[in-house]
C-alpha cells in the first residue's frame, strides 16, 4: 500500500516536472510561473523586515542595518597636491616657498587610517550586505529580533527550500548536464549541413534546463545588440553561473583551461557540438599562443562569438575591477555585456576562498532564486586612429559596463584577492608628494639664478609638470 502511494506520487511528480518545466525549456516558452514566484517572495520579505523592525522597537533596541554606503564619509577625492596645499595654507599664508612641513604627515596618516576602517578593495571579495532580510540564515544579522511568527515562516522557508526546491533543482541539473553530454553525440549523427543549426538548438535547450535548475529569473535588455559571429563578448564576472546566464540566450565559444574529471568530460563533450577554445595548463602562460588562437577563431566568421571575462576572477557584483588587456589586443569588435544580480533572492557571488564548487552549487540551489538583469551594450571597437591602446580601450569598455550595471568602476586588479599590492602604486604616491616638495624647490633655484629682484609670479604657474 505504501509502495503504491510512493509510486503514484513519484509519477505525479515527474509528470508535473515534465509538463511545467522541461517541455517549456525545450520549446522555449514560459508560463510566467517564475515571475509570479518572485513577486510573492518580495512581498514576504518586506513583511518579514517590517516584523523585525516592530520587534526591535518594542524592545527599544536598534536594528542592525548594514551600511551599504560604508562607515565613513569619504570626502570627494582631491589630489595629493591640493590636500597638502590646504594643510599648509592654514599654517603659513605668508610664505611663498613651499617646502617640507611637519604637518604633511597628517595627509598620509588620515588616508591610511581611513583605509583601515573602510577600503574599496577588500570588501569586493566577500558577499554584499542586504538591507532587508530574505529569510536565509546566511544573511541574517538580527537574530534576537525574530518573533515567533517569523521563526515559523523561516522554518517553513527551510522546508520548502531544502525539501521541495533543492531536489527539484538537482533533478533538473542532472537532466540538463546529461542532455548536454548526449547532445554532442546525437548531433554527430545528423547530416553535416544541419549540424550547426541542430547543435544550436540542443545547446539552447540544455542551458534553458540548467537555468530552470537554478530557478534563475533573467531579464535581457537591448537584445538587438547581441554579440555576432567574429566578435568577442566581454562581461563582468561574479560567478561561474554567468556562463549559463549568457549561454541561455545565445551560443558562445568558451575559453578556459582544460580540467580533469567531470569538468573535463563536459568540456570534451561540448567541443563535439561547437568549437570551444580549451587551453592546456602550460599553454596558458604563452600569451602569443593564446592571442593567436583567439585571433584565428574570430577571423573565421562561421564561428560563434567568444565569451571572455577579463577581470580574471569573481568579484562580488558591486564593482567592476581592472580588465586584463589580452582580449582587447586582438583587434576585433568587442560586445560588452553587463550582468547585475539582485541579491535579495540569493547571493550569486562565489567566494572561492570560502566555498568549494560543490558547496557553492548547493547554496545556489537552496536559495530562493537567482534574479539578474543582463544588458547587451552596443559594440565597441578600438580607436586605432586616435592612438588608443589596448589598456585604454579596456578601461573604456569597463566604464561602459560599470555605468550600465550601476557598479562602481575601480582601477584595482582583481588579482589582489590573493596577491599583494605592487610597489608601483606606492611609488606613484611618493612621486606625487615629491613634486610638491622638490618640484617647487627647483623653481626656487631658477629664481635665485635669474636674480633680478622682481617677483616672477606664482610658483605654480611656472612648473608645467605640476598639476594633473
Amino acid at each position, binding site marked *: 500500500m505504501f509502495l503504491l502511494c510512493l509510486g503514484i506520487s513519484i509519477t505525479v511528480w515527474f509528470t508535473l516536472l515534465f509538463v511545467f518545466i522541461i517541455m517549456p525549456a525545450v520549446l522555449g516558452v514560459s508560463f510566467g510561473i517564475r515571475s509570479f514566484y518572485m513577486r510573492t517572495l518580495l512581498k514576504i520579505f518586506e513583511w518579514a523586515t517590517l516584523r523585525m523592525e516592530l520587534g526591535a522597537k518594542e524592545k527599544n533596541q536598534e536594528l542592525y542595518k548594514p551600511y551599504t554606503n560604508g562607515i565613513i564619509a569619504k570626502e570627494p577625492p582631491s589630489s595629493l597636491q591640493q590636500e597638502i596645499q590646504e594643510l599648509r595654507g*592654514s599654517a603659513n599664508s605668508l610664505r611663498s616657498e613651499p617646502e617640507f612641513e611637519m*604637518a604633511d604627515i597628517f595627509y598620509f596618516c588620515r*588616508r591610511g587610517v581611513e583605509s583601515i576602517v573602510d577600503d574599496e578593495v577588500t570588501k569586493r571579495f566577500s558577499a554584499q550586505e542586504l538591507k532587508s532580510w530574505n529569510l536565509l540564515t546566511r544573511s541574517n544579522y538580527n537574530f534576537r529580533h525574530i518573533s515567533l511568527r517569523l521563526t515559523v515562516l523561516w522554518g517553513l522557508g527551510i522546508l520548502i527550500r531544502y525539501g521541495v526546491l533543492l531536489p527539484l533543482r538537482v533533478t533538473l541539473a542532472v537532466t540538463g548536464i546529461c542532455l548536454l553530454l548526449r547532445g554532442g553525440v546525437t548531433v554527430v549523427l545528423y547530416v553535416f549541413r544541419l549540424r550547426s543549426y541542430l547543435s544550436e538548438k540542443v545547446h539552447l535547450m540544455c542551458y534553458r534546463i540548467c537555468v530552470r535548475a537554478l530557478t534563475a529569473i533573467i531579464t535581457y535588455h537591448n537584445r538587438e545588440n547581441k554579440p555576432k559571429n567574429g566578435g568577442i563578448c566581454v562581461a563582468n564576472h561574479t560567478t561561474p553561473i554567468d556562463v549559463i546566464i549568457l549561454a541561455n540566450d545565445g551560443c558562445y565559444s568558451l575559453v578556459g583551461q582544460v580540467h580533469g574529471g567531470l569538468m573535463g568530460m563536459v568540456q570534451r563533450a561540448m567541443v563535439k557540438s561547437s568549437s570551444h577554445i580549451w587551453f592546456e595548463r602550460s599553454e596558458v602562460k604563452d600569451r602569443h599562443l593564446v592571442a593567436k588562437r583567439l585571433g584565428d577563431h574570430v577571423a573565421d566568421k562561421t564561428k560563434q562569438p567568444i565569451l571572455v571575462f577579463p577581470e580574471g576572477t569573481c568579484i562580488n557584483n558591486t564593482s567592476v575591477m581592472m580588465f586584463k588587456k589580452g582580449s582587447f589586443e586582438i583587434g576585433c569588435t568587442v560586445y560588452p555585456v553587463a550582468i547585475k544580480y539582485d541579491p535579495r533572492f540569493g547571493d550569486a557571488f562565489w567566494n572561492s576562498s570560502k566555498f568549494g564548487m560543490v558547496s557553492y552549487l548547493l547554496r545556489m540551489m537552496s536559495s530562493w532564486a537567482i534574479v539578474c538583469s543582463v544588458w547587451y551594450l552596443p559594440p565597441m571597437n578600438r580607436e586605432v586612429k586616435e592612438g588608443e591602446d589596448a589598456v585604454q580601450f579596456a578601461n573604456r569598455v569597463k566604464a561602459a559596463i560599470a555605468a550600465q550595471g550601476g557598479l562602481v568602476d575601480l582601477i584595482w586588479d582583481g588579482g589582489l584577492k590573493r596577491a599583494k599590492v605592487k610597489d608601483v602604486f606606492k611609488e606613484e604616491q611618493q612621486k606625487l608628494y615629491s613634486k610638491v616638495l622638490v618640484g617647487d624647490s627647483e623653481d626656487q633655484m631658477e629664481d635665485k639664478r635669474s636674480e633680478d629682484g622682481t617677483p616672477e609670479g606664482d610658483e605654480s604657474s611656472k612648473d608645467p609638470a605640476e598639476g594633473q
Partner: protein
Amino acid sequence: MGSSSSNMDHIPDAQHLMQETGFSAAHLVRLYERFDFLDKDDRGELRLDDFEAVSELAMNPIGDRIIRAFFSPGRETVDFPSFVRILAHFRPTDTNRTRNGRNGAQPEPANSRTNKLKFAFQLYDQDRDGKISREELLQVLRAMLEMQVTEEQLQSIAERAIQEADLDLDDTISFDEFKKSLEKVDIEHKMSIRFLE
C-alpha cells in the same frame, strides 16, 4: 559575514569602551564588524598580516608606521579595545566638550587636539623617547620620498625642517616644539574621519 556577529553582546566591555572613546553604540557595532572582517582567521585579534592585506594601506608611503601605531610596544596582536582606542583619536573634535573646563578628574578625550598631535608625533618618534631626532626625521622623509630625491636633497630638507622647529637648539624636536610649529594648522579637521550615523 556570518549570522552570529555584530551584536552588542559580542563586544567585550561595550559600555566602558563607549564612554572612554566617545563612539556611539552604532559606531561600535560597525567597527566590530570591520574588525571581524579584517580578522581573516577568526582569532579575535589582528596581526600584522591582517593589516597588510588592506591594499590601499600597502600603497601608502607611511603605511607600515601607521600599522605599527596600532600595536602597543612589545605586543604582536591588536585586540578590539586597542583597535577602537586608536581609532578614537580620529573622531572629529567635540568643540563643546573640550572647552568645558578642565576639572582635574576628567582625562582629556582621545580626540582632543593634543592627543591627535601626540598620535602624529609618535609616527615620527619611533623609539618613543619623546624627541624627534634628525635620524628619525630622515627616516620619515625617506619613506615618503624614497627614490624620487637624492640623498643630499633629503638631508637639506631635513636640515631646514629641524632649523625651523627646533627652538631650544638641541638638534631634536620635542613634543612642545612640535606642537608650536603646528599651532596654525587645522588639525581638528585634517586629522579627523567623519563616521556616518
